[in-house]
């Protein structure tokens, strides 16, 4: 039995460093996570693990805890519609309003294992004229170093590549290396740069991105953190920039300057030009 103060210690640590909020009624969700950490660090008991984290937290121990605290669930073309709206409406409109635009900057924040940025690029490659793909640069970031290293490998197993991904896109944009290894081709891969970025504590760039995706990430944050992160996203967009959230998420009630718009059935948030 893990005692309450140990759960609370780890929940507080996770909250402080990532904003991911485990309520008391969710403490049991930490059980299997703490077990995994005990194995990784060869701790016999959860008390030993607690002791290790109260004595000296190395960078690896920190990453281990953050990796384990995050939920990295994702799949290709998640929700489908936003990607259609992106390539059919949002990108054409941005390009039409900025005839001299040479670089289309997209930030995919909370990209997990890479399916989302690769889906954006496959959608562009599949539906837009070729010059749009060569203009596109995606910065894809996450707090989880494990998720990022899988994203960088760009290699997915037979189940991953079927989850959400239409077969025509699979044969067009992946190279099959074995039954359990399909790799995204280099044309797509070369347009994305992955990096570690903590939405809670890192400094956001100002007025940099035409488009930001941050989907199914802020659901783990409490209201105050969600509001302050969204304000920073607003600043990180160029005027006329567009922000995409997950299908069940909204910025309503947070008093933000975003202009809400429904385009082809997808709710997006715009920073006025």
């Amino acid at each position, binding site marked *: 039995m893990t005692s309450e103060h140990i759960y609370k210690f780890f929940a507080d640590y996770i909250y402080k460093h990532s904003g991911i909020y485990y309520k008391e009624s969710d403490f049991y969700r930490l059980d299997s996570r703490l077990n995994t950490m005990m194995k990784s660090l060869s701790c016999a008991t959860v008390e030993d693990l607690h002791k290790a984290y109260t004595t000296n937290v190395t960078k690896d121990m920190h990453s281990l805890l953050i990796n384990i605290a995050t939920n990295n669930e994702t799949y290709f073309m998640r929700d*489908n519609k936003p990607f259609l709206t992106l390539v059919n409406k949002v990108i054409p409109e941005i390009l039409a309003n900025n005839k001299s635009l040479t670089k289309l900057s997209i930030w995919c924040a909370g990209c997990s294992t890479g399916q989302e940025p690769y889906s954006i690029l496959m959608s562009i490659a599949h539906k837009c004229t070729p010059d749009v793909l060569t203009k596109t640069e995606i910065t894809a970031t996450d707090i989880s170093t494990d998720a990022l290293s899988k994203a960088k490998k760009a290699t997915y197993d037979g*189940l991953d590549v*079927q*989850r959400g991904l239409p077969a025509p*896109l699979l*044969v067009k944009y992946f190279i*099959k290396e074995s*039954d359990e290894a399909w790799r995204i081709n280099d044309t797509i891969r070369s347009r994305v740069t992955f990096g570690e970025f903590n939405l809670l504590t890192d400094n956001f760039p100002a007025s940099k991105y035409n488009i930001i995706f941050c989907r199914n990430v802020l659901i783990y944050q409490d209201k105050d953190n969600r509001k302050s992160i969204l304000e920073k996203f607003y600043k990180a967009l160029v005027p006329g920039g567009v922000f995409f959230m997950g299908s069940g998420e909204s910025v309503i009630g947070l008093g933000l300057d975003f202009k809400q718009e429904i385009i082809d059935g997808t709710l997006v948030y715009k920073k006025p030009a």
Partner: protein
Amino acid sequence: MKILIVDDSKAINLMVSDMLHEAGHESLWAENGQKAVDIIAKEKVDLILLDWNMPVMNGPEFLEKVKSENLTSAPIVMMTTENKPDYIMKALEMGASEYIMKPFTSDILINKIDLVLGGF
């Protein structure tokens, strides 16, 4: 929706029809392409799940026949252990709308059906 499973394996039929029923679909079974041709001559189906290797008439032969003779407007989804990109490409060129590699899970099956009915 009414979905026709064309597969020589009874076990696959049972597994897939369970997944479909769970998602609120109806299913029919044909154990090879010829039997499937007979069924679609009599009955309207909304979607066809098609195995590759089968006796009497295999998946590609069925696809070829159905497309050249215009026997159905139902979208056809290949469902097979053949997972070489060339095979997938060939099936799509022959008129299949989607391709599912075995093994797969129920959420993949249902998602692929959704994709065919209104996807990318």
